[in-house]
């Protein structure tokens, strides 16, 4: 059963403790596909860490910055939405420091499998 509908964040603006313009290339996107190894559902921003190959095929641990717990909660994302080991596909803005392997989340999708329902989210992390 596909449990989660695709969600779009239109809730109130959330203030970043840092400048997104200074942290990410806002005019570029990158897609990574791999295994979720950690989901930090927190403030001021949540993070998912994903093991996925870079553009050279070398496996990296990516830090994907997501919305605040409050923003995600309004979007129907809970602490239970994602689990370590989930296969995920993430699109977002790449960080300005390549060796950090950071991404600002724009969308995340976990395809349906025999054991997991489909999950997807897309929106704007502010």
């Amino acid at each position: 059963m596909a449990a989660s509908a695709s969600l779009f964040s239109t809730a109130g603006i959330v203030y970043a403790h840092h400048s997104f313009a200074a942290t990410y290339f806002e005019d570029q996107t990158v897609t990574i596909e791999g295994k979720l190894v950690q989901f930090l559902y927190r403030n001021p921003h949540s993070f998912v860490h994903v093991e996925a190959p870079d553009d050279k095929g070398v496996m990296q641990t990516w830090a994907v910055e997501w919305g605040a717990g409050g923003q995600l909660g309004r979007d129907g994302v809970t602490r239970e939405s994602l689990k370590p080991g989930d296969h995920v596909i993430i699109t977002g803005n790449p960080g300005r420091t390549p060796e950090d392997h950071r991404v600002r989340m724009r969308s995340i999708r976990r395809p349906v499998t025999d054991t997991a329902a489909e999950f997807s989210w897309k929106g704007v992390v502010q």
Partner: protein
Amino acid sequence: MADLCRIRIGSLPLVAVLMSLPLFGQAVGEFIPDTGLDLSGTWNPLLHEDFPERIPGPELVNYSGLPITDGSRRWGESWNASRLTMPEHQCQVHVSPYIYRGPLQLRVWTERDPQSQKIIAIKNYISTYEQTRTIWMDGRPHPPAWAAHTWMGFSTGKWEGNILTVYTTHIKQGWVRRDGLPESDQATLVEHFIRHGDHLTHVSMLTDPVYLTEPLVKSQDFLLNINAAGNWLYPCEEVEEVAGRPRGAVPNYLPGQNPFLTEYANMFHLPLIAALGGAETMYPEFRKTIGNPPPVPKDPLALAEVSPRAEKNKSQNPNPTDGEVHILPVQGNIYMLVGAGGNITVQAGDMGVLIVDTGLAQTADKVIAAIHTLSKDKPLQYIINTHVHPDHTGGNEKLRAAGVTITGANVAGDIADATKGAAIIAQQAVQDRMSAPSGNQAAAPADAWPTDTFLGDRKTLFFNDEPVEILHEKAAHTDGDSIVFFRHSDVISAGDIFVTTGYPFIDLARGGSIQGELDALNNLLDLAISKHDEEGGTYIIPGHGRLCDRWELIEYRDMVTIIRDRIQAMIKKGMTLDQVKAARPTMDYDARYGAEEGFGTTGQFVEAVYKSLGGK
């Protein structure tokens, strides 16, 4: 630039009037007259002023309209946004001169004396970073220069007609703009809160002798919100964002290596000199002076870097100037004595007194008198030396004689000099450098030598209901450095590994090294835990300068690391010591920590780092 010019020009007439108002004429201790005006209520910010700078945030190397120094520009150009991924930087609060630009809510209320109903303080709660701010209205003085700083600083206020005018000192280092432009801990702030019915205008004038060439004036507006619901919380919990980063690494761009120097200027088709800021970019005349500027290079690395030049130290002396030894309560059982050369830590309780370091020889009597006011006639039993230098051990002889070593039963008979005074504890290297083999001239008299030394990396005591750890740091400031951790009071005495008065003195002749210094700073960071958003919690008494918490240690560690990185890169390029000195690898920090003459000059620091890294 356009955004900033608009604000500045729009604000100028108002600012001119406000700055002409008299400030703070009250006598200390005198309550501020109550005008009856009330700012109490919940206020929501109007975000239209500089909206893009607030959300999503300022672009890199957009310094337009800011009266920054060359040192500030260098600081900003070396700033890498990746630094904010470090756990210790994730919860950096926006300091009081910056926080009112945040988008969340402001609550204002008044605290009155229950008997007289006089106003004691006007309080602000700013939900951005959950900051509570107190504006004292009872005429109390500002703390001494050696007191700790906070994100919001120490504020006193007075009514000037219907305007609340506030003066703030003791602010932590923070942002002038959060794209890497620093505000130093020497900054002071004058604010005016002006209420017109349901509208509140806040005007601030920031003065920073270290990083601004003239005051930075800003305004922001709030609207009364009679519905006080909403989100009042802004929890921040640090996490490991970037996996596998080496311990102690601080992301930064070496001079000339910032790849984003021209991005903002190119994006908005601005002359680069406008994007790089400076006081001249605040004023409309700037438009005329730039004439036909050269095109902005597409390759930012083709640019010449900021011209290295000397910046004079503009920071305030954090030491007493009256020749007296002053006592500053820290927390728990711990007090800091200042005015005796190096700072002295005093732990006082029912069992007696333990001190860390003894200051200069000539101030020993005043130190003894200060300790007596804290000891309640209990004996001084332990002296711990953090290192060998005479501004920390000079009082050993007199202080030891003023104390006792308490032994019991027949043990006293086994220790011949037990009645001579307090025990002096230090790492063995300290005694080695103060003493000499029999028949040779020692550096210090025998009664000043440590009596209880340890050879390893750790010695512990339990005194006054408190575990005390003495941790040896190898080859840091010297080869005999110890830090002293009072685990119950949650205070660390850092010795000269950490000072707020200058660059670290790497004493190569006595076994110091830059890598050992950095290892020690990182070890200190590991011990310290903040109470809330890098403020409070563990307090750190530096070898010299004001009382600190973890935040000051973070910024200091970052600075020493960045300077190390620069000098290391210069050595790799084959630069001589003179060439390295001429390149001013410390330029962005010199107005805060530099010294051109006297003990511990900038040149000596650069030379010590250069040689310690193997430079020839």
